[in-house]
């Protein structure tokens, strides 16, 4: 039993819903009690979808449990098939139905339908949302393509040459409730088409069962989100010999590496290599002198595996930040993230507990947090700027404007989204510098709001004594006054360090000189 106040991922059947809702001509009959329909609002409210998820909930009640819940399942399947006429039917159960073991998938298969039926067994008491999405997409792909396995030869990535046409690829992984998937797909398709590569199928987002059957018309697969498409890409490789790409095109370096990888796999010469450096404004913006102040900014990163690993690379290599913390809630990608963390010489944080993440942020005292919406809230409480880089989704993460994370435009978006909170930080600094000028209007706030300027915490005359490790340390007038002169975004750290120093040296009162002594000591 695990105490959970908030969870980064929903249950696995929500993952299955993401696949079903992303696609066309599919219906999902979910054996589930009343209340599980809450998941509909993730799609209709957060994604602002104008369609209901294609899901029928059997809605069993306590009084049904003594009777024949299997009949209820069959009734719902029958009605759903008649009403929605899906080309492929997904059948599964949520956590409670798993306990009563009606085996809805088997029931559906015995009902004499001629459409493909995918029996989803998603263990609700051990797995989570992304796993459920991945498993659903994999089972669906397998069901729709398994008959073609034996008859087809291994697919050569060079087949396009023999056929005398442009190479074709599939883009796999984008789904609803995925981070900026809608726009990433457009960006990646644009990049590929500039290179003379056609998109065969995008799936699951916007695909129909027919499209899944057509996956094998492409030469290779682009695995855009390993969390969702990793298992399917691997299955297609094993059974059809289809190669797939591993590089996630987030950031300039990764996008270039991605383009290289695609060309290499297809044996397609890359003709515009030099041009690629100039496709995005990120490299120049990052090089321009205005960005000097970004150097060595301490950044803490937490999110899903794909986006966290990519963010770490961009932060370090493309923006010149210092990564002080890296973590993910995606246990499936823990190994990869650990490797990245090791390279960066930080400890990897693998957890589903947001309070642990908040503690880690406090401990590492970053100047910027890149995280999920939850980290945005934690960072707000701590007065640290934050940019959101990953799911779980929030209505703000489905912007009206084109706003990808991948490719050239994605890099532009990332530069703006990560740097603007810091720009405001600089503005905050200026406010601090000039706040004693007579023109300064008291109460001026930047967008960070009241929590950002924490001066009151430090200069409140009432708060003369600060408790620390049971010993009392007194900030003298000169110490407090000097502390207010420290830029707000490092003030917390300076305060803690000075107190630590005072404690270490047995100094009972902190004066302005102590502050400088501590600064020298820790530098």
């Amino acid at each position: 039993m695990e105490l959970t106040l908030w969870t980064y991922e929903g249950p696995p059947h929500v993952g299955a819903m993401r696949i079903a809702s992303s696609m066309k001509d599919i219906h999902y009959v979910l054996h589930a009690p009343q209340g599980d329909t809450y998941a509909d609002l993730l799609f209709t409210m957060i994604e602002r979808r104008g369609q209901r998820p294609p899901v029928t909930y059997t809605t069993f009640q306590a009084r049904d449990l003594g009777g024949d819940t299997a009949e209820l399942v069959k009734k719902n399947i029958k009605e759903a098939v008649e009403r929605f006429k899906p080309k492929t039917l997904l059948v599964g159960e949520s956590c409670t139905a798993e306990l009563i073991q009606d085996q809805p998938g088997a029931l559906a298969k015995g009902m004499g339908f001629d459409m493909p039926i995918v029996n989803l067994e998603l263990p609700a008491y051990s797995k989570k949302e992304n796993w459920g999405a991945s498993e659903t997409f994999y089972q669906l792909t397998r069901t729709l393509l398994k008959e073609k396995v034996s008859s087809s030869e291994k697919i050569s990535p060079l087949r396009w040459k023999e056929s005398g046409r442009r190479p074709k690829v599939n883009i796999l992984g984008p789904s609803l409730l995925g981070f900026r998937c809608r726009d990433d797909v457009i960006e990646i398709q644009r990049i590929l088409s500039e290179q003379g590569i056609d998109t065969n199928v995008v799936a699951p987002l916007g695909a129909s069962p027919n499209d899944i059957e057509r996956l094998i018309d492409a030469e290779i697969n682009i695995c855009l989100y390993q969390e969702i498409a990793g298992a399917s890409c691997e299955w297609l490789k094993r059974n059809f010999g289809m190669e797939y790409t591993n590089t996630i095109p987030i950031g300039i370096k990764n996008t270039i590496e991605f383009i290289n990888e695609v060309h290499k796999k297809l044996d397609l010469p890359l003709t515009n290599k030099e041009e690629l450096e100039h496709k995005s404004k990120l490299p120049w913006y990052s090089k321009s002198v205005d960005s000097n102040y970004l150097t060595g900014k301490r950044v803490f990163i937490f999110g899903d595996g794909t986006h966290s690993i990519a963010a770490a690379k961009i932060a370090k290599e493309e923006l010149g930040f210092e990564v002080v913390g890296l973590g993910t809630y995606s246990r499936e990608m823990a190994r990869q993230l650990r490797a990245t963390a090791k390279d960066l010489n930080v400890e990897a944080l693998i957890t589903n507990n947001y309070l642990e993440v908040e503690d880690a942020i406090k401990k590492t005292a970053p100047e910027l947090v890149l995280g999920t919406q939850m980290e945005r809230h934690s960072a707000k409480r701590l007065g640290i700027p934050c940019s959101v880089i990953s799911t779980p989704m929030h209505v703000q993460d489905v912007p009206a404007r084109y706003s990808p994370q991948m490719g050239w435009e994605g890099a532009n978006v990332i530069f703006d989204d990560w740097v603007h909170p810091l720009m405001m930080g600089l503005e905050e600094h200026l406010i601090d510098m000039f706040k004693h000028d007579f023109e300064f209007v008291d109460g001026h706030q930047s967008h960070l709001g009241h929590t950002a300027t924490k001066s009151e915490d430090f200069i409140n005359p009432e708060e003369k004594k600060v408790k620390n490790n049971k010993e009392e340390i007194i900030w003298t007038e000169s110490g407090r006054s000097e502390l207010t002169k420290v830029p707000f975004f490092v003030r917390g750290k300076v305060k803690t360090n000075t107190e630590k120093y005072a404690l270490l040296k047995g100094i009972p009162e902190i004066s302005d000189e102590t502050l400088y002594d501590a600064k020298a000591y820790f530098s």
Partner: protein
Amino acid sequence: MSKVEFNKETGPREVFCGLTSIVWLHRRMPDAFFLVVGSRTCAHLIQSAAGVMIFAEPRFGTAILEEKDLAGLADAHEELDRVVNDLIARRPEIKTLFLVGSCPSEVIKLDLATVAEKLNKRFLGQVRFVNYSGSGIETTFTQGEDGALKALIPLMESSNEEKLLLVGTLANNVEDRFKKIFRNLGISNIESFPPRQSTELPKIGKNTKVLLTQPYLGDTVRDLKHRGCEIISAPFPLGIEGSTKWFLSAAKAFKISELKVHEIISPLIDRAKLALESHKEILKGKRLFLLPESQLEISLARFLHNECEMDLIEVGTPYLNKDLMQEEINLLPDNTKIVEGQHVEKQLDRVRETNPDLVVCGMGLANPLEAEGISTKWSIEMVFSPIHGIDQAADLAGLFSKPLRRNQILTTKTLVTH
């Protein structure tokens, strides 16, 4: 009595389960913690409905069952013990801990009553434990509050003091207004259940006169009756009419004259009618379809028809307790179609066929209906907004007129473009 048409429907439902009521219950009692014993689905449901991220640390959580908990119940009880110990160590300010059953905990027959009993002994004088079920297989949405309140009744001491007990969670400001009005009427001893602190439970007995503020408290009412309380029969205090009748019923139970009531509330009624006018202008003659969710649907239909002159196409309700709802049903216009239960697909077919001007529905259905060109109002807002009482009548009407007004603004072509 009006001739109301009753129908029953079964099938797939689009309704929240009782766990959702934790969202307002925990705010009402800031010294209580709600621990759901359930699955990741339960945790995800509550966080999706409650916007948990705004809290540094919420006062509700889920003890998520894992595979090993399902293998042996003895282990599950031990595990729950461990989770509760950790929780109390972390949140020493908690005075009452609600152990909330869920669909999976009910199905595996986890005995939360026994767990609560044991924990009560161990934490005697520090934390009180009560248990109830908010599972979807037994409860809908607002029924969760019924379970929570019912669970508290055994902890309430007896007293034969005469008092008015308002039962059902109200917004604090609304509750204060009600108390002031009752005091002006001459009723001085007024208490609320649930109280604002979980430890300050009202004492009850044969001179306790219970006045319900919410229509979803059937089990609570039954147990209060068993404790000797008198239940005042009244419609619910939504809108001017409902609130007036509600005050009059209470006054009657305390032998206060109708004249006195009118004297106190007439000025309120006058200004509320004035405030209602602009909304009525928009709502008048518009056709309304209520899908089942909050259990407030019948009272809302009564208000929107009788005071805002809307036409009722269909009034859905998750379940129908005819005893509790009798006063409301009596006020409905003839031929009102009440549908108890739901077959969401068939009901949506009827929505499309009848093409209403406004549909009251859950959040899962609102945008899809809007996309079909049908204006909607999400029902969850009714349980989060202060809508009770005469002074709030216009605000309540505003919840319904706003989507229509917005629709008008957005569809009126005022800009000439070439």
